[in-house]
């Protein structure tokens, strides 16, 4: 018994030693370090789930038959898990669309509906419209009784007579779940875009300042410091309240369709590149004195090659951390600006502007105010943990073997 245990233990030890002696690439080391940070791993999964849900928004729309835009003013502020009957206007437009699409088939269906006495319209042309006023189950029964090749399409229409809202409806009777899903697209999209773009700006500024030094460095770093010392929120509000269309150059970039989103990304980028710039400048200053840079310089490498080929790979890792943390921060700023009504403009849903609408409704529908904020909290906390985990993973001081 004892000897058997001993041998297995020894085997395990041997395996461990073998594993330790095997050369590990830096990615493997970082990955194994990262895996030890449980919260960061969970954060990564949460982000992954959010991204998948956001990307599959059109699929979910198709599957549930709900969309983020259709309004239903008779069914506002419905609590979660309620079934709601669609308004007459919604039913009639879908019938209208069906009639426009299949004019011949409609005549057959109308005749059958009337002859089987399923509806009693005043004029025969109204037969389908009368059918549309039935309850969902009755309408379904009626389709079963008639003989037509368009049964499945009619069923799809009848299905939309009633909708089921898992998270209830908002102040215009729109489905909250679909709006949250589309809001995820906007909010996370803005957050990631801003973090990446500002990292790029920061990389450029930091690299130029750190590499060339002297007057350029002083100038760029003064600007960076000045921007860093400003309280961000008032500045963002002043800029966000501006009509950027009045600047000739920018008005060409901003098209009317998604103006508010692009404008927000632009503004947030303008004020969030500074930390990356300082980080990159710091690492490049120390890299500049290293032997391998001197070596490639003596081999005749141009400044461009030195910076992009030899220095950038060495600053990517710390930058990754700051980009990850930046996503969370950008999501918070987007939400704050949209919450103040200066960010993303309705009807485009974002978590922030959903809260903006909901803050006046805390008496009627407190639920509306809680959900978007919870999502913001989950996503930012995940990004922050992810960044923390990455930082631990790439920090050589924290490496445990």
């Amino acid at each position, binding site marked *: 018994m004892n000897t058997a245990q001993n041998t297995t233990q020894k085997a395990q030890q041997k395996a461990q030693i073998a594993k330790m002696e095997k050369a590990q690439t830096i990615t493997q080391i970082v990955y194994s370090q990262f895996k030890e940070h449980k*919260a960061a791993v969970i954060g990564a999964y949460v982000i992954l789930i959010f991204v998948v849900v956001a990307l599959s928004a059109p699929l979910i729309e198709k599957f549930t038959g709900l969309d983020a835009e259709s309004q239903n003013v008779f069914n506002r502020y419905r609590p979660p898990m309620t079934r709601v009957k669609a308004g007459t206007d919604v039913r009639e437009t879908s019938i209208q669309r069906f009639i426009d699409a299949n004019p011949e088939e409609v005549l057959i269906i109308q005749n059958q509906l009337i002859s089987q006495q399923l509806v009693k319209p005043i004029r025969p042309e109204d037969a389908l419209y009368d059918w549309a006023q039935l309850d969902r189950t009755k309408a379904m029964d009626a389709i079963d009784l008639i003989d037509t090749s368009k049964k499945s399409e009619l069923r799809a229409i009848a299905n939309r007579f009633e909708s089921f809202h898992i998270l209830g409806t908002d102040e215009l009777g729109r489905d909250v779940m679909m709006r949250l899903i589309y809001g995820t697209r906007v909010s996370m999209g803005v957050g990631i875009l801003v973090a990446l773009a500002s990292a790029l700006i920061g990389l450029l500024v930091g690299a130029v300042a750190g590499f060339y030094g002297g007057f350029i460095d002083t100038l760029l770093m*003064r600007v960076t*410091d*000045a921007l860093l*010392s*400003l*309280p*961000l*929120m*008032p*500045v963002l*509000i*002043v*800029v966000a*309240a*501006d*009509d*950027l269309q*009045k*600047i000739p150059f920018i008005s060409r970039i901003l098209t009317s369709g998604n103006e508010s989103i692009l404008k927000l990304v632009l503004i947030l980028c303008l004020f969030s590149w500074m930390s990356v710039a300082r980080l990159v400048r710091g690492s490049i200053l120390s890299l500049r004195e290293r032997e391998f840079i001197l070596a490639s310089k003596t081999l005749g490498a141009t400044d461009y090659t030195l910076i992009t080929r030899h220095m950038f790979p060495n600053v990517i890792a710390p930058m990754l951390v700051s980009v990850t943390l930046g996503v*969370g921060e950008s999501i*918070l700023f987007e*939400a*704050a600006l949209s*919450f*103040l*009504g200066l960010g993303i403009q309705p009807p485009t849903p974002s978590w922030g502007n959903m*809260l903006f609408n*909901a*803050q006046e409704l*805390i*008496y009627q529908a*407190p639920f509306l*105010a*809680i959900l*978007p*904020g919870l999502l*913001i*909290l989950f996503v*930012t*906390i995940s*990004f*922050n*943990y992810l960044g*923390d985990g990455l930082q631990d993973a790439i920090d050589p001081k924290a490496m445990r073997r």
Partner: protein
Amino acid sequence: MLTFILRRIVQTLVVIVILSYVCFGLMTLMPGDPVELMISANPRISAEDVTRLREFYGLDQPLIKRYYTWISDISKGELGYSRTYRIPVTEMMGPALTATFILSITSLLFSLIIAIPLGIVCALKPNSKVDYIANLFSFAGISVPSFWLGIVLIIIFAVNLRWLPAGGYQTTGLAYENIFQELMDKAKYLILPMVSLSVQSIGRFSRFTRSAMLEAMRNDYIRTARAKGLSNRVVIFQHGFRNALIPLITIIAISFSSIFSGALITETLFAYPGVGRLIYSSIIGNDFNVAMVAFVVSVSAVLIMSLVSDILYGVVDPRISYK
């Protein structure tokens, strides 16, 4: 040291001047200038009147000239009138600045009172259960949108429990009998904004205290102090915490600007009459005089605060040399 202080002062002044100019320029980009607003208020206004009004307000002048007129008026102490409230901007700025100052300071103190003990406890027992839970709360604190937290607090404490008012500064129409009653009444209105503003700094401060304290407790002099037979309390507070305090002061100095940023949203949400809300409402309401002055004054105040704390930093830690 002296050159450092002088350079920092000059730098701050330059930033303030540039900022005020940029801000002045940005204000012209806002939808609707004063004359456009008058036109929309009076559609029968004639074209000659419009040009006359533009001339009167100096709107036909180039930007730099208008800025010069504005800044020289400001330096003479003439801040102009609020277009919405029809009172001098000076009268609005005083109470607003005081209100924001009270809110920011109480929330700073509140977050320090909670965060520092929390950070110390975590640092003394790293990777324990307490540390783990506190860490989770710190992360939640950093990640939570403060305005949403404010809404949740209002729903819980003002709508459901009815313990605290949902917003405002003091009970309207209440005549105070004594100063104690006045303080109690105002404190009641301050609690919710203060808590929602503090949460983020609590998270940041406690994480920072933890790492600074961990760093300090790793030093050799801690081992020496313990070997000398000093009591645990003396080791922790006299030798550990005092050294951890130095990096903590920097983070407090930096957090002035973020607390002020947060105050803007919190004040708007809780209808608290501070500068942040003044900036927001005047920008939304096209009240440019107020917006400009409130913005420049409050941002300058933040910059001067961080300048002062930068200088004090050197006083606290004589090891820091300024080059």
